[in-house]
Structure formats: C-alpha cells, structure tokens
C-alpha cells in the first residue's frame, strides 16, 4: 500500500517508493510468476522458475518458450555482443570518402566505352553524353596500417588502425528503398526481419529496462521509414523501437497530464492486482505475460529518461563527440537541417549508453547522402557531421573496454557512379554529383572482432567494378552473424512453408575480415 499523501516527496522519490512497494507486493501470492520472470532477467534464477500456473510458459509466435527478450546463447561463443549500425541513407560516394582513384581523376571528362555501359541501368544518367567525374578530395594514409581516407574524414583517420575497410562491396538493387531493404533485411522487398530483429530474436537482450533494439534518427529521417528496422514476420517484440530526438525518448513514455509517479505506481499496482485476481481464475500464461510487460513498461518509464540524461557525462566526453559543436554555415544541402550536427553527435553518445545498458542493437539513421548534384558541398556536410562523432564512438568504446564486444558498422545501400550525373534537364549543372552505383562501394566496420587496420578488396582503376575479393551484402550479413556466434545457415525461422534466413539468398562468412 502506498502511503498518501505523496506531496511531501520529490517526484523521483515518489517513483522510487512506488516502485519498491510495487515490487514488494508482487512478491506475494500470484505475483510469483512475474517475479520469477524478473529474477530470471537478473540472472538470479538459472532455469525457468517452476510454476503450477503456467507449465507451458508464455510462447511467442515461433513457438519458443520464455520471455521474448530473455538472453539466450547463440550457436557458438560470440565475439560481439552488441551492434551499432550507422545507415547513411541515400548511399555515400565511395570515390570521395574511402576509395581513392587517381586514374579516375586523370580520366576526368572522358567518356566510357559503350561496351561497359551497354547493359547497365542508371537511375538518372543519360549514357550517351555521360563523362567520368574525378574526385576533388585529397586522400592520405592514416595510422600504422596506412589506410587511405579522404580529407573529409580526418577524425576517422585517427581510428584507422581500428577500422576494417571493405572496398569491394557490391549489391543487387539500385534504387534506394529496395537497396536499403536488401542491406537491412537481406532481400530487396518488404516483409523480412531486419538484422537487428534477427539478432534480438536470436540472442534476446541484456537490458532489463530498455527495449533490446533501438533506433535513433538525426535530421529529417530516412526514406525507408520503419521498414528498415522492421521485425518482418517475427513477433513485434523484435522490431526496432524508434527513440525520439525530442521530448520523451519512447512514445508514450511520460504519464498523462496530472498523473504523478505516485498515482501511476498506485494505478499499476491495482492493474497488477486485478490481473492477478483474474489469473487465479483463468490460468492463462498470456495474463502472466501481460503482468510482466506492465512491469517492464514501468521500469522503462524510469530508465529511459535516465538514459537520455547526458548530464552524467563529462564535458570532455561531450566535447569528444561534438555534442555542443556549432552547426556549419559553409556547407549544407539535402542532409542538413536544424541541429543535425548536435543531434547526430548526441545519438552516437546515446548509442554507447544504450550498449552499456545491455541493449543489443542500435541503428543510427541519417538522410540523405544521395548526392546526385552539388557533391562536394553536400557530401562535405554529411561527412563532417558523421566524422567526429563516429570517431569519438570508436575511441570511447575502446577506452571503456567495450570495442571488442561491440560492433560498429558504417554501411550505405550502394555506391555512386564514377560518371558524373547528367540528368535530363540538368545538363548545364556545374555543381555535379554522382548517380546510383550498385556494382562497387565501400563499407567499414570497427570492433566486434573485425580486423582493425585492414583494407579488404579492390575496385578497378575508376572504382566501377570490384576486381578483388568481392563482398556481397549477403556475405556481410553472414560474417556479422558469425561474430555474434551464429551459423548463418542455421539461424532460421519457418515462415510460409520456407525456412527463412537472413542469408537465404546467399552469403558466406568472409574469414579474412575477422580475427
């Protein structure tokens, strides 16, 4: 029973009191089931608690017992435990960031032989008049490994020895959304679970108070929307939960107007009691599940605001990420918006805080890197936005001893053409850009057992085709699953008569990439 009036306590104290009493009361009688669920979350009970009420236990759609987010072991000992996946939506230019091509610069302005473009589809380029576009970027080697990166990425350069750069990526889709779906879900269509959904499905989550799969967006949001963090046909518990950048981080996290923490706690207590009274008469494990989900919701109400409260971070940390850095005035374009720089920096820091709190998968989204024109200025904006915070994230994870077990991925949906774009109606454009290019692009990873300082694969002299060690998106997926302890051929769910896997369209583990 909560002691009233509650007015003498601060909201935090009221909440703590309500929580304590809430949980104390749930330890009696019919609350046992819910409590055992909680204890299991805490690792205090190794096995599923015996219960006369629900011998079969709650089941999810795929027939597995236990709470959907209960941690469970993969197929073999994993290297990585958490993943932070940055999706620069729109597809960054590999030629201006990661893959230097002096020959392309030398051939600037020349046409390609027809034999090379005859069978190629472009989104906007008109083949007849298209010419090669050299890069204005200066590349230089970084780190002991000597990885060459563009002058747009000075901060990431200082992390070169921790970065595993793949210059030989290729994909099958050349429009944004299908290609994003391929990157995030393994097929260029709707309906399949995303990588984060597969991992939270396979591993559960280490977090008791937060969702296992969290999405943070900066700027205007991306073109793919929720389909890029969908759970597909898996239960919705495995869908990425979009944390908002303003106000409460989770939808409906705040209690309604007037509802103080004490009243909220008291109401939840009554809900729990009534549900337990009903459970006594109707021993359906779904009721026990609902009781447990209300308890987690209540914990989230307390944990999520703490998560986004950056006042606990040192100024040095905030500065390292650039949380307070000024927004640029000299560059802009389709990736820009009010406070995007600060927001992205903050999202990177939040990603670390989420991982520290046991969250399994964090997707960072920023759009758009779709630089059909005005490449230098607009890519300059996007790269500068991402460079410092991502480098800070690598360093921060490393100094906290989390980089080994945390995988950071930077992957767009495809690359961009060595040809300059000459879209119909814009033939006289002077500030050129590049068109969609699925045949070759670059992706990098850090931590999670990927080889730091490795530059893997090669493209031809103009960055058009992969000529050495091709890595398909499917291969990337297989390798990432491997680092999380999964045989990608065995992480499968039966759906519509098929054994569906993230990699059922293909894929092999690229052992060269990993330690």
């Amino acid at each position, binding site marked *: 029973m909560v002691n009233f*009036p*509650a*007015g003498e306590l601060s909201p935090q104290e009221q909440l703590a009191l309500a929580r304590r009493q809430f949980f104390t009361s749930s330890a009696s009688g019919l609350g046992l089931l819910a409590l055992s669920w909680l204890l299991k979350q805490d690792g205090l009970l190794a096995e599923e608690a015996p219960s006369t009420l629900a011998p*079969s236990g*709650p089941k999810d*759609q795929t027939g597995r017992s236990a709470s959907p987010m209960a941690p469970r072991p993969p197929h073999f000992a994993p290297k990585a435990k958490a993943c932070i996946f940055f999706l620069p939506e729109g597809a960054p230019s590999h030629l201006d960031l990661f893959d230097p091509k002096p020959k392309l610069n030398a051939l600037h302005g020349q046409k390609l032989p027809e034999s*090379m473009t005859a069978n190629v*589809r472009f*989104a906007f380029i008109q083949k007849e008049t298209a010419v090669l576009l050299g890069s204005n970027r200066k590349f230089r080697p970084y780190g002991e490994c000597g990885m060459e990166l563009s002058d747009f990425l000075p901060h990431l350069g200082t992390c070169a020895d921790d970065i595993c750069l793949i210059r030989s990526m290729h994909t*099958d889709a050349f429009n944004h*959304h299908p290609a994003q779906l391929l990157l995030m879900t393994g097929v260029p*269509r*709707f*309906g399949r679970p995303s990588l984060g959904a597969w991992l939270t499905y396979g591993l559960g989550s280490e977090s008791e108070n937060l969702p296992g799969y969290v999405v943070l967006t900066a700027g205007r949001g991306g*073109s793919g*929307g*929720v389909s890029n963090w969908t759970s597909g046909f898996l*239960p*919705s*518990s495995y*869908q990425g939960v979009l944390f*908002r*950048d303003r106000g409460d981080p*989770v*939808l*409906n*996290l*705040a209690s*309604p*107007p*007037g*509802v*103080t923490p*004490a*009243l909220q706690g*008291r*109401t939840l207590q*009554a*809900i729990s009691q*009534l*549900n337990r*009274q009903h459970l006594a*008469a109707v021993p*359906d494990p*779904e009721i026990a*599940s*609902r009781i447990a*989900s209300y308890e*987690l*919701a209540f914990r*989230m109400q307390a944990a999520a605001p703490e998560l986004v409260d950056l006042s606990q971070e040192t100024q040095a940390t905030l500065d390292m990420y650039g949380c307070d850095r000024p927004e640029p005035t000299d560059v802009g374009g389709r990736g820009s918006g009010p406070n995007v720089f600060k927001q992205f920096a903050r999202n990177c820091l939040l990603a670390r805080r989420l991982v520290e709190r046991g969250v399994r998968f964090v997707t960072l989204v920023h759009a758009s890197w779709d630089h059909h024109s005005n490449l230098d200025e607009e890519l300059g904006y996007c790269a500068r936005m991402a460079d410092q915070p991502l480098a800070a994230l690598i360093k921060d994870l490393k100094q906290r001893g989390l980089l080994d077990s945390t995988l950071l991925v930077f992957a767009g949906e495809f690359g961009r053409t060595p040809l300059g774009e000459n879209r119909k109606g814009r033939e006289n454009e002077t500030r050129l850009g590049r068109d969609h290019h699925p045949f*070759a692009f670059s992706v990098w990873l850090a931590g999670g057992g990927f080889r730091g300082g490795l530059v893997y694969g090669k493209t*031809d*002299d*103009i960055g058009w*085709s992969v*000529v050495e060690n*091709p890595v398909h998106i499917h291969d990337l997926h297989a390798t990432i699953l491997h680092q999380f302890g999964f045989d990608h051929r065995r992480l499968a769910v039966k759906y*519509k008569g*098929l054994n569906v896997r993230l990699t059922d369209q293909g894929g092999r583990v690229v052992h060269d990439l990993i330690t």
Partner: protein
Amino acid sequence: MLDRRPWRWASWPGWLAGSLLVAAGLCQADEPPAAPAKVDFTTQIQPLLRKHCYACHGPEQQEGGLRLDVKERALQGGDRGAAIVPHKSAESWLIRAVTGQDEALGRMPPDGKAPLTPEEIDILRAWVDQGAPWSATEATAASAPRHWSLVPPADPPLPAVRHRVWLQQPVDAFILARQEAEGVRPSPPASRDKLIRRLFLDLIGLPPTPQEVRSYLDDAHPDATERLVDRLLASPHFGERWGRWWLDLARYADSDGYEKDRPRPFAFHYRDWVIAALNADMPYDQFTVEQLAGDLVPEADIGARVAVGLHRNTLHNTEGGIDPEEDRVKKTVDRTNTLGTIWLGLTVGCAQCHSHKYDPLSQREYYRLYAFFNDLDEQDLEIPTPEEAAALAQARQEHAEKRQELRAALEAYIRDEMPAALAGWEASLAGLDASALAQRKIPPDIVAILARPPQTRTAAEQDQLSRYYRRIDPKAARLEKAVRDHEAKAPQLPPHAKAQSVVATARPRVTRIHQRGDFLSPGDEVSPGTPEVLPPLVARGERPDRLDLARWLMDPAHPLTARVAVNRLWYQLLGRGIVPTLDDFGKQGDPPSHPELLDWLARELVRRGWSQKAILRMLVTSATYQQASTPRQDLIQRDPENVLFARYPRRRVEAEIVRDLALACAGLLTDRIGGPSVRPPQPAEYASITYANSARWEESRGADRYRRGLYTFFQRTSPYPMLMTFDAPDSTECTVRRQTSNTPLQALTLLNDVVFFEAAQALGRRIVAEVPAEQDPAQSVKLRTEHAFWICLARPPTAAELDTVARLHADSRTWAASAPEQAQQLVGPQPPSSDRLEELAAWVSVARALLNLDEFLTRE
C-alpha cells in the same frame, strides 16, 4: 547476356577481355557419336543419375526446378526447358549440362564434384537418342496419390458420436467424434455473460452495453442466443469487423509505400465496398469475381469497378530514377501471389524464381498465372455522387462564364484604352537615344521602330509594337494574368470522388518467364493459364482473361477455393485453422486436423450459395464455439495447441478493436460507417520520420477524432504507432494471420497514449454520471464499480475485485485531495458537475485501471 555481377567485368582498361571470354564459351566441343548398344534404364541409367544428379534434382531438392527421379518431371524439364528430348540428345539440357556445353550453366554436377566419365556420358547420350525409355516399374508422379488438397472435397457423412446431447450444429459432430476417439471431453459451455461479450467482439468488434448484456441474461427463451446472433450479423458494424480481416488479405493502405509514400486520398472506396459487400452478405463467388475481374463483368456496375481496385492496393514506387517497368512487374508479381494466398491457399510466390520445390507448380505455370495480371492497366475512376456531378457541371458552367467575362474585359481594354496608353508610353520615351532605350531592356527591333515617327511605320510594325507594349502595360498584364489564373482553376471533382480501379489492356502484353525471377532475363513466352494439377479452365474466348480465372476459382468442383475460405472463417472464430497453415495447403503446409470437417464445411459453403454469414451463423451457434475458454490443466499437457478444439481459444483482440473497445466503453465512439480515412491524434514528431513530409498528419477534429480503428489513415512508411504496437500488419503484402504480441510498448500505449487517456477520462465521467451517489459512500463505490465492470467486462466484479477497486478509489481520492492541481489535469477540461473533484479524479483513475486489464483486451 546481362549479368549485373560486377566482377565479371575485367578491370580497366582491359574491359574488352570479358566479352572475349564469353565468346570463347560459346564454342561447342565436337560431339562424339552416340553409343549404339541398347541401353537399359534400370541397370545403367538410374544408378548413374542417382550417383550424379539426384542430390540436387531428386526427391529432396529440385534445383532449377528440375527433378530427374520421376519420369514425368524429368521429361517436363526445369526452368531452362526440356532436360530430356527423347531421340535428340543434342537438344537435351541434360546432355548439354553434363558435357559443360553451356557457359552460363557450367558443367554439371557443379562445384568440384566429379564430372561424368566420357563412358558415362556416352551411355547417357545413347539412352536419350534411343528415346529415353523409362523402366516400367519406375513410379511416375501421376500414379502417386495426389496431395489431399488437390482432390475435390467429398460430401462426408456426419460421424457418429456417443454424447449426442452435446451437439448443436453439424460441425460439432466432427469435433466431438475426434475428442471421443482421443478420450478428451469438451469444455463446459461458456457462461452467458462471457458468451455475449465473445459474440459481440467476434461478430462486430464492439463491446455489448450493460443494457444489452442484461436483456440477454434476462431472456429465458431457448432461441435467445440465435436471435442475438442474427441481430449482430445484421448490424452494419459486422462489415467493419469482418471487412478489416479481408483488408489484411487485400494489403489495403492509404498511401503508396516506398520512399515517396504518397497518400491515396480515395483508396477508401475499396474499403467501403468491402464493408458494404460483407454487410449485404454478397455471395463469396460474386465477392471474388468482382474483386478479381469486376471491370470485365458484363454490364458491371460501379461497385464491381471499385471492387477490382483490390489490384490497386499494391505498393507503388514513385522514387526518382525508378524503372517504371520494374515497378509494374513487382506489382504484377504481388497480384499473382495475392491470388495464390487468398484463393488457392498456395505459396505460389516461390515459383517466381524457380519451379516450386515442394508443390507441383512449375515456374512456367507461375508465369501463366502472372500473365492474367500482366494484361491489366491501372486506371482511376470518377465516381461522383449525383450531387457532386451536378455541382461539377454547375461549377464548370460558372467557370466558363467567368472566363468569358475576363477575356472580354481584356479585349475591351486592348481595343479601347491601350492605344492611348501606348501613346503615352512613347511620349515618355521621347528624347531618349537608342542606348538609353536598350538599357530599359527594350529589344533592338522595338527600339528601331520607336526611332521612327508613328506615321512612317508600316502597319505590321505598328502591330508588332503594340503586341510588345501589351506585355509591359501594367493593366493589360494584370487583366491577362486574371484570365490565366482563372483558367488554371478549372473546377474538379473533390478528391474523394474518384476510385482506384483497373482495366484490361487494349492489347495483351507478351508474358515471358523471368529467369531466376529477374524480369531482365526473359525466357520463354507463356500464355495465361492455370496450373495443370488443378481442374481445367474454360475460357470464354481464345485467350483466357481474369474473368475466366475468377469463374474458374468459383467452380464448385475446384478443390481449393471453398476449403481455403471456410478454413479462414473457422480460424478467425476458433483461433486455429482446421489447416493451421492458412496460406499453405501444399505439401509444406500442415495437414488438416479434421479433414472431413473441412470438406463438409467447404461443401456447405457452396450449398448455402456461398453465403459467408450462413457459415458464420452456424459456427457461432455451435457447441464447439460456445465452450468456455478457461485453460484446463489436463489440456495444457494433452493438447497445448488446442488441436482438438476442446475449449474456446482465449485471445487478445486485434489492434483496431483495442481502440474501438476503449472508445466505445468511454462513450466517445463515433459509429459512422465508411468515408475518407481519418487521422486520430498521434505524437507530433512521429510522422516526421517519413521522407519529404509526405505524411503530414493533421489531426481530425470533432466526431472524426473518435472513429473506429479501421478508419485510421494508414501511411505505409509511418503507420499509426498504436496500430503497429498491437500487431496490425504493415500492409505491404497479403497477410492471413496477425501476430499477437504482448509487449511493454502496449502497456505504455494503454497507460499513457492521449487517445486512451481521453477514453479513461470520459469513462470516469460516465461512471459518475450514470450512477448517482448514495448516502453511504461505500455503497456508492460498490454500485459504481459494478457499473464500470458491466461496461468494460460485461460482468459484475468479484468480491476481491470490488475490494481492490475500492482501495484504488480511496487512495486516488486521497491523492486528489492532496494534489488538486494534478487532479484537475487528470479529470481533464470538462468541468466536473456537482460531484467533487476528488470523486471524479478517483473514478478516472479506476477507469484507467479497467481499460488496461488483460481481460478488457481479451475475447474469453
């Protein structure tokens, strides 16, 4: 050859090398002569095929759609065509493959497996050239028993049962017979209060009012339940409830999907057609024909042409740079797969890329189905109401008159007043030299004319000058702009007066097999047609069309259509299909738990003239349906999946109904049927995640704020969060079953979402308003709690529940007294009536608790 894998191209600058390699691959090796000796299949060929081929082309796997262990399938061949052409080894893929003659295919067996020896190849070639004789003992696919679902349903007799008194409907006999055989007893009947709530939730998706519950409980007539069922089936809300399930299948949404995700402001006409058709109990055959081919039905009314808008519910990609043909192909594939799922109950989509591995559907047959949908074009219909049509005609008339008026004013000005203005302008330029005139941006030819006195100019020059001046004369420009602006505002029908529809293409498109599912790799041409394992299609004309296809489906002899349909109805009421895999009646699907029941129901649907309401009425009045839902200790061990249907399955209601229940109990629900989709409140930042602001969410006002969940505008890339939290499908593809998750986000939604909070406030007010306070406060709490339970749960509270609510009420009152400002916020803007603030706040608090109960969200 188009190969988009990049590394096939050689590196710069020697990229020509790649094509040389391809050319080299085309050179064929000399073929040795065939071995002349007579080859025996059983001793020579079969062991050879088993050794080299069956692993990938046998009973387990059929790579490339090819199966070599069964004569019929071997001769039929795979995706590339005939593997074995008797007497023609050079034309047989089998021979080309084992000899490595085809560059694209490579040598078989692949990947480092030992190739056939020259001797083996000779034997194989000789066998083919001798006509590929098969052993007489080799089983052919035709002689194997057909898969159960491909055999037309029989008319099974009702099984005999011992406990006859339990039976209420014929279906019960099938259920009870199996239970008796397995030694399981049915559950007792549900209590009447549970039954009425169950019937309301299942049939109309709304809660019964306390009055409806009481009058049903007081109705002692034996047919009370049947009359209740008839009332619910006749309710206009029936079509909303059952229509929403159909909309899941139809992947209905209010926007395009993909990057642009443009709104579809008039998509709702299809949704309304579904609701109306179900309310009218349109026979399922007509319901099917109109949706698949309404445009082709002779003398089709407008309804049928809206119904065929089913095909417009596909995603639609308007992203810049998209290949429109690729998008059209994707939609056509989706239409084909949707047909497979809804009507055939087969996962035909697998055959898009390769012949079906498990079911007798070849890739060729898939594209023959595809060809039906390849012959349609999208078209929007104008469907104004008579009033809208009249208003448009009137507006057009007025618009034309106004245009005439504006033009007349312009012409009058030019004729009567402009000459003077021109003269004045010329005068103002007097004395300026040519360079000064040029500085005023006057073109050189005009400057030249101006340089001469008016009387020396030709008529043509004067005319040119006057035409030039007309452009810069402020008044003429103004009048001209008025005409243009007016013309741009041509009257149009309101956006909702259109409907999405399709028409047959003027000339049929050529359909080719997409090799490996890639539309850029066209294979053989195919014509529209249905799979061979199913009954033959009878076409009206030379080339079968969608109407023939639809009528073929509804032939009572079709083995799948009726079974698939009744199985879905059964699933929706009983929580588990007789065939649990609702969308897979093929070999990979689960077999029926009660095959005779499925057949009996399928035949009954046809006997009842395809009336879905007749089937539903029978099912909900069955003893099977009316069992209690309470989990039973014996069944948890014995039958955890409820295969024996020995109890009613207790399930949370669907997303839309969660909303409907809260609004209905609160007394807020607007019960208007149909109309444009609405936008109830959602978090402001939520819609901003879509691209280009395509999903601007302007909250609906007034009554539209409180519409049923199925009317919520469904924006595919940022769907209404509450619906998604409660497992509504994302409407990107045909969905036969929804997930039922149970997550903390659901808890947060029901506790804190503005819609549910408003509902709690309104319910709190309702409780206080409808039950007057008593002298004895404890008695007041008791009576009000009872009323609240009747509203929300259709039953009175237990003593323990009364006590729990009373304590929450008391604590909330204490809280409200100590925190009056918050209490004021809690009860909301509506001023409390005569009741004190604390009392109202306490009931809002109780209302919140009740709207969050597991039982509240659950069909029991």
